[in-house]
């Protein structure tokens, strides 16, 4: 008997659909051992995650609060994925988006509610877009690796926001805490049901719809898809790939930047340290799990929202560090990549000698 790897002639739709679910399952199982090793019963922890995030109206609202920035960032990253471009910088783009929105809220002096929110929205959009656009320009012009540039710019963005809130933008009445003054009511999104849930969630859903239509129903979307699947063919067809790379990274960052707007206008009502606890990194998993589909991004963002709210409660109950969620997310990705292999190949026992 000998074990050989064989390519499947057709990869079944059932397998493709069930593989991501199976990988989350296996990741949960393996993460259970990590929990056991730190002295927490995995079953109780998982029960706690579900109860805290879905078991009550408040829990559900908190899950949607976390889902909101994840949808924006996930959409941004997955748009770039479409073109085989890696935007690992959603985290930084959220920060500069939040910075742009906060600048308008604090210093523009606009008095009308909807003008204020629109201006904040576009400031975040432009800031996030410009931030990613730098990487887009470098990639399009000189083929500089966008993975490294977008990632390093995360560190710069976070330090820049820190500089502002520890320095020039610090609230003079804030008892020296590193945060800006609170926004006035004109710069706040609507909140619902006496919870922290805000209209940013619906904006995120709307954004997913617009992006879906953009990709599936416009010429630009078509070009992005062509360039993503075969850059050389796209060039022969007369498409300007350099321009498209810049444009897609700009848009990708701009959408992630909206998450920053939604966080400061809907939730925090000021710019402060740690405005995003890693949403931009979670967005990479969301985009990969969603396999390029905008609806997929919404669904997976919700799942990750559940995980983040659950992770917070694990921290409160058992003092598990929040970063534990990253270990879990890493495991999901590992098993997802492994499952991709079994979609394309199968293992087969063959009797006797060599197969090839």
């Amino acid at each position: 008997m000998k074990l050989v790897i064989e390519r499947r002639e057709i990869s079944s739709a059932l397998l493709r659909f069930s593989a991501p679910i199976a990988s989350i399952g296996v990741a949960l199982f393996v993460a259970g051992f990590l929990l056991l090793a730190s002295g927490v019963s995995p079953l109780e922890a998982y029960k706690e995650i579900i109860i805290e995030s879905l078991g009550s109206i408040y829990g559900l609202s908190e899950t949607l609060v976390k889902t909101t920035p994840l949808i924006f960032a996930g959409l941004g990253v997955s748009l770039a994925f479409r073109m085989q471009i890696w935007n690992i910088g959603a985290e930084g783009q959220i920060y500069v988006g939040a910075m742009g929105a906060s600048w308008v809220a604090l210093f523009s002096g606009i008095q009308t509610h909807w003008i204020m929110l629109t201006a904040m929205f576009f400031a975040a959009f432009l800031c996030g877009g410009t931030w990613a656009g730098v990487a887009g320009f470098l990639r399009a012009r000189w083929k500089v690796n966008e993975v490294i540039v977008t990632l390093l710019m995360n560190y710069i963005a976070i330090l820049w926001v820190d500089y502002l809130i520890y320095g020039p933008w610090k609230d003079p009445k804030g008892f020296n805490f590193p945060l800006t003054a609170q926004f006035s009511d004109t710069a706040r999104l609507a909140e619902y049901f006496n919870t922290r849930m805000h209209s940013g969630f619906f904006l995120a859903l709307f954004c997913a719809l617009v992006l879906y239509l953009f990709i599936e129903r416009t010429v630009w979307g078509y070009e992005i898809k062509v360039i993503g699947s075969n850059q050389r063919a796209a060039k022969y067809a007369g498409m300007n790939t350099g321009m498209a790379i810049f444009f897609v990274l700009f848009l990708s960052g701009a959408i992630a930047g909206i998450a920053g707007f939604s966080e400061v206008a809907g939730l925090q009502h000021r710019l402060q340290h740690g405005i995003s606890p890693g949403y931009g990194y979670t967005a990479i998993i969301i985009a990969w799990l969603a396999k390029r589909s905008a609806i997929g991004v919404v669904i997976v963002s919700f799942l990750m929202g559940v995980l983040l709210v659950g992770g917070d409660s694990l921290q409160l109950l058992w003092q598990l560090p929040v970063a534990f969620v990253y270990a879990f997310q890493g495991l999901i990705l590992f098993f997802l990549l492994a499952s991709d292999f079994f979609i394309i190949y199968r293992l087969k026992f063959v009797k006797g000698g060599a197969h090839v």
Partner: protein
Amino acid sequence: MFEILLDATVRAGTPILFATLGAIINERAGIINLGIEGLMLIGALAGFSGTYLSGSLFVGVIAAFCATFIAGSIHALITVQLRGNQIVSGLALTMFGVGVTALFGKSMVGLTIVGFKRVAIPGLSQLPFIGKAFFNQDLLIYFSFFLVFMIWFFLYRTRWGLGVRSVGENPAAADTCGFSVSKYRFLAVTVGSGFVGIGGAYLSLASTPMWIENMSAGRGWIAVALVIFAGWSSPRAMLGAYLFGGITAMQLRFQAMGTTISAHILQMLPYFFTILVLVISTHRLQKGASQQPEGLGLPYDREDRK
């Protein structure tokens, strides 16, 4: 003043040097490893725990190597055996590293150990200007000098090194010549990861002898960028790592002198310079002959061979 600055440069550059060398071995065999940041953290924690529990720095360094060797084998299994996406697998490794070290490092926070001490090399440490900075250092730094030479020697003067380079340049041709692509790639990823782990251990055993959550602070990513600057060569990696050590040392010096420039702005400098250097070296790479391994980032499947 110059001597102090050069000394600080070498000390700040060493963890990045180990990480860059490890990444070079990975990429020479054709595998992109974006898990460097996570591996450094795993190495830092394993090194610290190993030393804390055994009382021996040597055990700590071995523990760091072994832990990252094992963590690296996850990346190797996924990218080499299962032909998975190298970028996603590397990012997953970084996330996994950040999470797992936060989880298991919790009990190590606040503990202290006696870190590596300086050992002066007689004669050489008396050299003017460079003597103190290069030859009055700790053993790990001397090991890094040795490693720079060994990796060069290994890659260009041994049959195994030829195997690593050829599976990275043209895996199909290497396969035809009888080099096992999967074996060479697997070992390059795992051993390379082990060296990255020693870089992490340098942080927790020599730079600041303690464990701090997320203590690598982006050094792993700087190392990934430096591989391109170094043109996949170990002696040039040394130059690159010390360049960044120098920027870090200067930034710390500025802060210590009580400048009015915000510390946050100064802390941006290493990241900013990394991007700048990356742009320049990528630009240069395209003008001249490219040193980038031809097969970098591409999974190899014998059935696809043309």
